[in-house]
């Protein structure tokens, strides 16, 4: 096959590479933010807050190039759908970086308060769910793998469940006002991790749109229509 738009398609590839850079950084940032919480490591938390600037910088670069490509190349069909994915996935990854930064700031703000082991285990488990979800979403993109993208809602379920039940653990800390203050902050951490999972599902939906041309939020049991693009 002859390629008549090699410059344009090379620009699209570069945008995808930027997304992958963002996702790798986002994963590291989320891991480190939770690690700082588990270890009570204020220095690591500070590094995470500073590290968010790099994700923001990459996102600004994605947006700048995205606008240039749109203005100059007028993409259509699967190229247009990929452009849509790049912008939305870029935004999702940038927000994941923000969530990591928010967790790190909570670590700094609660460093003098007593902690609760059960809640920490809950949060560690949530991390072990949502960080691989980000990896799975990006793998689905790189491999153009619809089945992998479709698995994301199911991977997200345990994270949602843990987040919904976090309040019970927080309520169990009610007898100790200082620990309760810390635990209430942990609800925010739980919520931030749950949002990371949701963002990974969003990226999966974008991958499904790229591959099928069908625009859907993943409901329970969604499968693309037969013969879709």
């Amino acid at each position, binding site marked *: *096959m*002859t*390629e*008549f738009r090699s410059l344009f398609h090379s620009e699209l590839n570069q945008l995808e590479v930027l997304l992958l850079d963002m996702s790798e950084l986002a994963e590291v940032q989320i891991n480190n933010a939770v690690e700082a919480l588990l270890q009570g490591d204020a220095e690591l938390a500070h590094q995470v807050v500073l590290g968010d600037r790099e994700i923001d910088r990459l996102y600004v670069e994605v947006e700048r190039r995205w606008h240039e490509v749109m203005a100059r190349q007028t993409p*259509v*069909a*699967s*190229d*247009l759908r990929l452009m849509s994915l790049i912008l939305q996935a870029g935004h999702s990854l940038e927000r994941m970086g923000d969530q990591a930064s928010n967790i790190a700031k909570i670590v700094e703000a609660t460093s003098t308060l007593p902690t609760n082991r059960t809640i920490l285990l809950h949060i560690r488990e949530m991390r072990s769910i949502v960080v691989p979800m980000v990896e799975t979403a990006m793998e689905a993109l790189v491999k153009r793998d619809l089945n992998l993208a479709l698995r994301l809602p199911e991977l997200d379920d345990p994270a949602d469940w843990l987040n919904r039940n976090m309040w019970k653990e927080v309520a169990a800390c009610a007898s100790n006002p200082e620990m309760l203050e810390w635990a209430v902050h942990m609800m925010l951490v739980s919520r931030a991790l749950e949002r990371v999972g949701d963002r990974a599902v969003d990226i999966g939906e974008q991958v499904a749109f790229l591959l099928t041309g069908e625009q859907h939020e993943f409901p329970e049991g969604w499968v693309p229509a037969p*013969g879709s693009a």
Partner: protein
Amino acid sequence: MTTVGKPEVNEKKRVDLNVPMETTTGPALETFAMEAVGLSAYYGEFRAVRDVNLSFRDRQITALIGPSGCGKTTLLRTLNRMNDLVQGARAEGEVRFHGQNIFDASVDPVELRKRVGMVFQKPNPFPKTIYQNVAWGARINGMKQDLDALVEHSLRQAALWDEVKDKLDESGYSLSGGQQQRLCIARAIAVKPEIILMDEPTSALDPVATLRIEELIQELKVNYTIIIVTHNMQQAARASDHTVFLNMDSDRAGYVVESGTTGTLFTRPARQETEDYITGRFG
């Protein structure tokens, strides 16, 4: 005295999400102005277009796109039997217009071309005045009506009246390229066609004149069915309601790969062949 009253509330029109975007400006009921059925076009032994089955929607803009040599122009020129004028050209199959096959012996091609007008790639005004250019078709067809009113009406519809109303006696050649093309559109409109065929009508025009013609086409579709051949895919995407993609076989016979609403064809084409062509991966 000015009365200060309650400010009017600018209520935004609600968008009906159940209606696809590209059909919101179309007629309420889908009707077809013309249909090609099993249409093939030949130049001598060479088959330029094979087995075309297409329905052109009434008062909508249909764009024909495809690589050079795929038979877009041949197909267009077959729709009003303009190709009859080319030696060795012939057609098989049918083109139905008002229920009649235009290739029937009883059909007068001159009468057909009056009802299915054509605008060409290069503006081709006659070496006459602006007025005479527009009035010409009506005169030779013996149309008995107020020619001044017809000329004004046609020039207004072609969005040219304001620019030429004070110089109707000047030569058509005195106009710019874009104005000349609008003059040719006014000339086509003056004989009151139902369908206007346009063969790359902006390929000889600058970008501003091109956009002006595209705007004009949008206005014209209220009254006319428009079928336009364009090499410019972005023009098809901008200006048409429906798009037909043609490709050609190894024997260079053009065929229809896919047709559909322009919005769908340019976002999620059904055929890989279309996807490859419009994304520039054509081979």
